[in-house]
């Protein structure tokens, strides 16, 4: 096919457009494979700490500096309340948070740990309890 009627600049323009399209869509498909989990630790509605679990090599403790006292342990694959001085220890009983969307709260100390990340497609939208 003779494309002489199209100037070189036109072809470049179309090529740039197509490359831009691919570049714009790329994150969507790459993003889906991304299972990055971030542990977000909050006290009184304020984020104290936000930890990308993939950067954690050894489990370590994080003191929430609250009353009653509570401590969270952050691991490479999970996060959990490892110590609490409250009455019912509900936060510790919640166990280890491993999946995106998992939450543990210590209501007496107004602290909260949420594991953020892209939820599994088959995960329910909410849970009633």
């Amino acid at each position, binding site marked *: *096919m*003779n*494309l002489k*009627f*199209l100037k070189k600049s036109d072809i470049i323009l*179309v090529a740039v*457009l*197509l490359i*831009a*399209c691919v570049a*714009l*869509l790329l994150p*969507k498909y790459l993003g889906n494979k991304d299972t990055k989990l971030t542990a977000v630790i*909050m006290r009184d*509605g304020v984020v104290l700490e936000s930890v990308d679990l993939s950067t954690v090599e050894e489990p370590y403790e994080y003191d929430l500096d609250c009353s*009653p006292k509570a401590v969270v342990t952050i691991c490479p694959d999970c996060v959990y309340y490892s110590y609490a001085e*409250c*009455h*019912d220890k509900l936060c510790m*009983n*919640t*166990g280890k948070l491993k*999946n995106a*969307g*998992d*939450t*543990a*709260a210590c*209501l*007496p100390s*107004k602290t*909260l740990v*949420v594991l*953020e990340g892209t939820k599994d*497609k088959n995960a*329910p*939208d*909410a*849970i*009633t*309890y």
Partner: protein
Amino acid sequence: MTGKNKILTAVIIVVLAISAVLITFALRNKTALETPSTNTTIGMGTVVVESFYNVDKQVSKDAIKESTNIINDLDNDRLSWRKEGSDVWNLNKDHSAFVDSVTFSCISTCFDVSSKCDGAFDITVGKLSSLWNIGTEEARVPSDEEIDAALPTINYKRITLLPDNKGSFQVETGEDQSIDLGAVGKGLACDKINEYLKTTDIYGGTVSVGGSILVYGKNPTSKDNTWNIAVRDPFGSESDYMAVINCEPCCISTSGDYEKVLEQDGKKYHHILNPKTGYPAESNITGVTIICDSGVLSDALSTACFILGFGEDSLELLKEYDAEAIFIMKDKTVYITDGVKDSVTITNEDFKITTEVAE
């Protein structure tokens, strides 16, 4: 190549390029719509999770902020019996108070439910619930004498609702009575957020106020735009579930004996008190989930049905309000009412469906 062909080829290339750009933006918009904005926080003394879908993330963020405000304002100004100056605080102090229309209609709905279940659900349990204080650091098992003293104060029939045509709402209770709207506060929050969301551009979303769920609008991530709400496994840990309800917009509440438990002398006491006995309600069920179109109703009905247990009485009550339910028996059998039978999937095979109605 003729001039005509040249033009044709040029047109085709331009059309292709434009299509590519349009498809790209459409796909990006779809991705943006299908990614929810989610916020987890503490409100009304419980965990609140708001999750909204909208192409414009700012719209979702604004909705999260406003929903959180709605929950906190309801708690502080209307419902909390611990917060000085709230409607309920005023009512419990003076036994007669002018309250907000929201508080008024909530109390009026509760009154209606009480009258239809012969007081199995009763908001005048305030004296009793403050004795137990389950769910707080001061939780304890009261003495029999204390419970006997509190029981005569419980009677919803002594609430008087006095609306007038000038838009003021007065409520009166007995001098010895105390109101506790703790059983329906979360559902009321769902109702108020539902009203608010209708004034926004939010495409769809869910709000969980301590397990009472508002299902709003359309779900962009499912083919038929419906939602999947899990029912917690009463025998498992907090994130375990035993069934999934496939639903359209509605309100869903659950009452169970595994939530907010007080342990004393090796005995476990849960937080749903039977207004007739003064002790945590005991029946053939371990949990019940209600599905209906109002949060206050789903909350009130789940409490009522939990106290009544599974049987003709609860089923009759549910019919009065066109509400559906999932009853989880202590022996892991599950009864699902007809209206939701086809939309509930049992996901844990330890649970078996029963169609028999107990005595």
